[in-house]
């Protein structure tokens, strides 16, 4: 890990999409891009596992997609703008999909946003605890 990349590891609950992660997630993100074509969306929906097996992705990447575990997809090099093609296929908005990564029920997440969003307090630095 470069010193530039390492600094971001101090920020809680965040995986910055670095060149290293982009390499790791290349096939996962390419699979996501394929869902921009309607015919591919239909084939994916008809048999998700079979469609995923057409891609040279790791088993962990495939399972994360099947589970719609977006945090695990991020760990595997996914990036939100590519992953958006999956939740668009599922008919979900950014708000709905993003909330699943926080562990909050969608109603609670929506209420938090309406009351001004997540406060920065406690979310700036692991090292400084602020």
């Amino acid at each position: 890990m470069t010193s530039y990349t390492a600094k971001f590891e101090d920020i809680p609950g965040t995986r910055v999409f670095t060149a290293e992660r982009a390499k790791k997630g290349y096939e996962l993100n390419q699979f996501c891009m394929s869902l921009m074509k309607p015919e591919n969306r239909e084939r994916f929906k008809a048999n998700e596992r079979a469609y995923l097996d057409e891609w040279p992705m790791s088993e962990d990447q495939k399972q994360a997609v099947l589970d719609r575990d977006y945090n695990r997809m991020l760990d595997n090099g996914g990036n939100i703008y590519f992953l958006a093609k999956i939740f668009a296929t599922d008919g979900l908005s950014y708000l709905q999909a993003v909330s699943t990564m926080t562990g909050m029920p969608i109603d609670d997440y929506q209420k938090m946003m309406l009351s001004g969003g997540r406060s920065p307090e406690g979310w700036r630095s692991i090292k400084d605890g602020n």
Partner: protein
Amino acid sequence: MARITAGLTTSHIPAIGAAIDLGKTQEAYWKPLFDGYEWTKAWARENVPDVVILIYNDHASAFTPELVATFALGCADEFPPADEGYGPRPVPVVKGRPDLAAHLAEGLILDEFDLTLMYKLDVDHGLTVPLSLVYGQPEEWPVRVIPLAVNVVQYPPPTGHRCFMLGQAIRRTVQEFDEDLNVHIWGTGGMSHQLQGPRAGFINKEFDNAFFDRLVKDPEGLARLPHLEYVREAGSEGIELVMWLIMRGALGPEVEELYRFYHVPGSNTAVGHIVLRAADTH
């Protein structure tokens, strides 16, 4: 000669585009947000430039994992709205200004900004949502647009300082164009937001408001803010704010602030919008 006379910045949240396209702008959730753009829509009707240079980022629509371009200039005759997975937005095709784009490409590359040049480019919500916010739902957009796509998806994006310098170079290069054109420049994206991980939903009003103030009065100092501080204080997707510094660099040292609007939330995001006039172009 051509001149850059005014600039604006605005968030480009995809849900804003959906609210416009589906006729939901007067619903309770959206009305306060759209009301905040009424001043600008009136101003924009009275101040129609010949060309808008529109700084935005692509969201995995035209750029795939196969190619990451730091700065990519749209040189085509026109730019169709992209299909982002929900079908293309029902908005007019964006008409370019290839003669000025060619001039910019030549001038900026000789000025040592090594741009990628795009002769085919589908434009996504990053570019079309700002046009909708300012110009509403016309049959044709009232301006020609030169898109400048900036990578803010894969780290590292360009530094704020590089963005500011590119803006300054755009100002110089536009002034060397022979035709008498009125040019505006828009910076889009931001403000604080994070769309990933347990920290998603992050909003920082204090940072955002200080960013507005420094953008107007201390852009050179603001341009030195490291990426780490953007992520720490504005969220991982708040890094889009570096694009605003291109706009600011292109307006020259002194600006007059005409209008400012801030609203939380637009979906997951703090909506920020400011309109500036270049001080030497009254």
